[in-house]
């Protein structure tokens, strides 16, 4: 079956447990995938899910993340302890030995599918997972559902907190390229020339990543996606100001190139990007068509919208993986309390005919 997510299921905050209740009722097993890292949001979904479905018990798949700096290792260990306390059973997925960081998520997705039972409620918590890892992991499960190998309910959880996002800084760029699983036709050279359109979902502090990706892709056109409407109504303006030199002087975009998508609804971005691709394909068909390439530099929630569009329409996704993170862990407990949990239901019950 081919999933289109029209309509879709999305909830947040206090309504999230209702979706878990609805989904877990028809399954004996409830699994959750988390990134075992320093991000204070790491244990949030696991603990809430465990409370909600008790006494059933949740099976946790803990993805080992690349070693953090010394200063963040303690935070990672504390998170791991909390996750294991909430779990009935734990499976560890070691970080795979691959040729490059952008290949790791694909291997993790394949490894996850080998672990999963054919039927279960599977929650993938992206709160503490980098997008270059969770993109192929989620795509693997969706592909497995569509080809009939997995017959469960997949939900994606994201604990959102813009203040925390602003407190975690990417430093250095370890690698830049297409995410394995989302290379699609970006790697093909034996094909007719197509106009390359790059649609970055812009966020704060993304300058170095945007520049690195631009240098890699050398696109014919750039159509940045800005968040609007947004909790901060001026956020789109502030992003334009922050990246003014890059977007306007170097990339030479004009105001007509900018696309807006709701900060709070990844399915709005999903629809917007699919429409963008259709429009460019149609307009440029007489000269060979277009290749729309995505990259995400914004919130986790919004990133999932881009993931779904890329998966459905086979759009390449590129990423600039940071070398390390800088995070001031003071006040983490407060920051964690302010996180809002959102949940998207992507396969299973709502989509059965």
């Amino acid at each position, binding site marked *: 079956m081919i999933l289109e997510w029209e309509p879709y299921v999305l909830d947040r905050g206090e309504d999230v447990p209702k979706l878990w209740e609805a989904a877990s009722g028809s399954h004996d097993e409830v699994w959750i995938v988390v990134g075992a890292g320093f991000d204070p949001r790491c244990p949030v979904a696991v603990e809430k899910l465990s409370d909600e479905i008790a006494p059933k018990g949740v099976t946790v798949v803990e993805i080992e993340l690349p070693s953090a700096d010394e200063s963040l290792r303690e935070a990672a260990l504390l998170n791991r302890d909390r996750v294991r306390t909430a779990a009935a059973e734990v499976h560890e997925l070691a970080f795979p030995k691959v040729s490059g960081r952008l290949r790791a998520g694909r291997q993790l997705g394949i490894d996850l599918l080998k672990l999963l039972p054919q039927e279960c409620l599977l929650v993938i918590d992206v709160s503490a997972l980098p997008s270059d890892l969770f993109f192929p992991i989620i795509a693997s499960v969706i592909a497995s559902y569509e080809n009939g190998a997995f017959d469960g309910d997949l939900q994606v959880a994201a604990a959102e907190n813009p203040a925390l996002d602003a407190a975690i800084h990417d430093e*250095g760029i370890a690698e830049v390229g297409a995410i*394995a699983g989302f290379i*699609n036709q970006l*790697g093909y050279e*034996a094909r007719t020339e197509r106009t390359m359109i790059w649609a970055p979902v812009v966020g704060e502090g993304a300058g170095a990543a945007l520049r690195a990706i*631009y240098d890699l892709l050398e696109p014919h056109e750039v159509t940045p996606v800005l968040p609007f409407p947004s909790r901060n109504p001026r956020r789109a303006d502030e992003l334009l100001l922050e990246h003014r030199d890059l977007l306007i002087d*170097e990339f030479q975009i004009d105001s007509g190139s900018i696309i807006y998508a709701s900060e709070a609804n990844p399915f709005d971005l999903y629809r917007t990007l699919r429409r963008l691709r259709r429009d460019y394909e149609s307009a440029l068909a007489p000269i060979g068509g277009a290749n729309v390439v995505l990259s995400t530099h914004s919130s986790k929630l919004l990133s999932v919208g881009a993931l779904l569009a890329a998966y459905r329409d086979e759009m390449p996704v590129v990423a600039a993986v940071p070398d390390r993170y800088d995070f001031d862990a003071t006040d983490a407990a407060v920051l964690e309390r302010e996180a809002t949990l959102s949940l998207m239901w992507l396969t299973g019950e709502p989509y059965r005919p």
Partner: protein
Amino acid sequence: MIPSTNPFRARASEQLQDDFSFVHTFGPQATHWLPDPPWDRLLVLRSAPGAGKTSLMRLMEIDTLRYLHRIGDPGDALWVSLNEMGVLTDDGPAFLGLRVDLSKGYRSLLDIESDHERSRRLLFRLVDARVVSSYLRACLSVGGDRLPEGLERLELRPVEDAPAAEAVLSRFGDTTGTALWEWAAASERQILDAMDSLTPADAAATYEGHAGLYSLRLLAVTNVFFDGEPIELTPLVMFDDGHALAREQREDLIRELTARDTGIPRWYAERYEALEPEELLSVIGTPGRDYELVVLEEDARRGSVRGDRRGRARADRALTRQKYEAMLMDIANRRAGRWLDRYSHERREFVELLSVELDELLGDAPQRVHEAVRKQLYEAAGGEKRYERWLEPPGGDSLYERTIELRAREIIIHRDRARSQLELFDSALPAEELGSRTDSRVREAAAVALAKEHGLPYYVGPDDLARLGSYNIEQFLRLCGDLFADMLVDISLGRSARMSARRQSRIVTDSSVRLWREINERVPGGGHVQRFIRAIAAMARDENDSPRVSYAPGVTGTALSTADQERLLDPGVREEMPGAQKLFQAIVEAVRHNLIWVEDDRPVKSDRYMVIYLNRLLCPLFDLPLGRGGFREKPLETMCEWMEDPPRPIATRDQAQQLALSP
């Protein structure tokens, strides 16, 4: 017209699909890096990032050469240079150049095939697919048709008496354009889809490979026909970004490319990497015999032409430092010329707008500065008879030159005081003695000291702009962009575009600060890299702030002995010695990102060293000179301590510098 385009920043206009912009802004002197054809041995191009090897390859691609032939001016320097080399003739291009980008997916083959032999075969098959598709695309360009319709008009036929032609052709089956294209597309898709598969079943499949690079042999034993007419151009296959491959893949590929029976010209380009355990090219033999090695910008960095240029570019065409800097000025003027004329009808060239009168370098109160320097000199002389002739007013056309001369004399006096010999009689040293001890390096040291002591502009003018590029054309263009952006402000206000010394110096310092800040944003292990650079700068400042300035114009680097280098390469040593792993990573990444440059195996006294210089654009941040200057050798233990000790404070005169360097 409201000025809005900065030709140095507008990446869209410098994109590779814009032949006009590319050709008109390419510095023709860069062709002097290349040896003349026939290129019958593998030509290896190696350089630091941003030095221009990809642009050089792009110049040789068939579309560029055809464009040049079609619209080019036979009197133009680029045309002349390519014509002299035999690359471009009056009848058209002599070569069918095509470029294969090795950064596109090859390394990932290791993830779908762990066995080395099978992985090697997959590598060759994927390379073959891309060589074939690029070749067909290039042939269509010559024939004047396009994909996919034109493919049916192409056909490869065996050259008469070509050895093993039939055997080679049989690997590809049908050699019509359409069939070859379909073969290439199918091969590529099969391999790339495997690398992109998301489910276990797809990931477990196995794939056929090639024992060698059949595509190059195919091109060597066939002629290509378009509508039955031969395309009589020699194929030139250029492999770019070889450093993106895994080590074993690079070895496999260059061994294959070195084989003499390959039969067609081929190039291989890679970025220079520091601290490689073994020279990659040692697996394929000796330079000059088995392959040709061109290290771009090497002659310019060394300041001289290497003697061993057998088979390489003629010495008279060698790109010395002066010629390299002239090339940069040429590129800058070409980029900016059209826009300056459009926005302000400015007839002066971009570079000319940066030239300043020397006395501007004395700031707003030149006479006061001069007097202060003269007073300082008298104090240094201490009333001694020995130096009285050295206090006579200096010659020089400008007040600045005379001021520099005075400051230089102060340095010489301090050096003289430090000499161990004692004079029996306190007699005045002759003026000629001063002349013999004062050279351009001392004067440059004096200029640096003067600027620092009096808060004067220093990094000013075209010559400094070229040096600040640090042999990185991309960096040079970015700095030009910063200067041009300021010019645009004046132009839009209806003022002259000429830029004052003080403004230039401020912009350069801001660019230096930005480069420093970007280290943490874009370089892996950026913190370690900054620590290493900072330690070099602190050491350099200690030396340069001494009144004698022993290593005029000043220290800007350090050096590690070959023996210490070998220790650092040893993983066991790195594990045992605190700071060694951080040092190793810092050097590797700093070279990769062009923050330092390295001269390997340089003789120093009775030993050999790896000399490490700072990127010149970092020098303004630390108030260091731009000249090639000196370096101080340090043992491995000291450099490791740099990585572990807290960063030392460095006194700076500018608020932006202070903020950038504060921990």
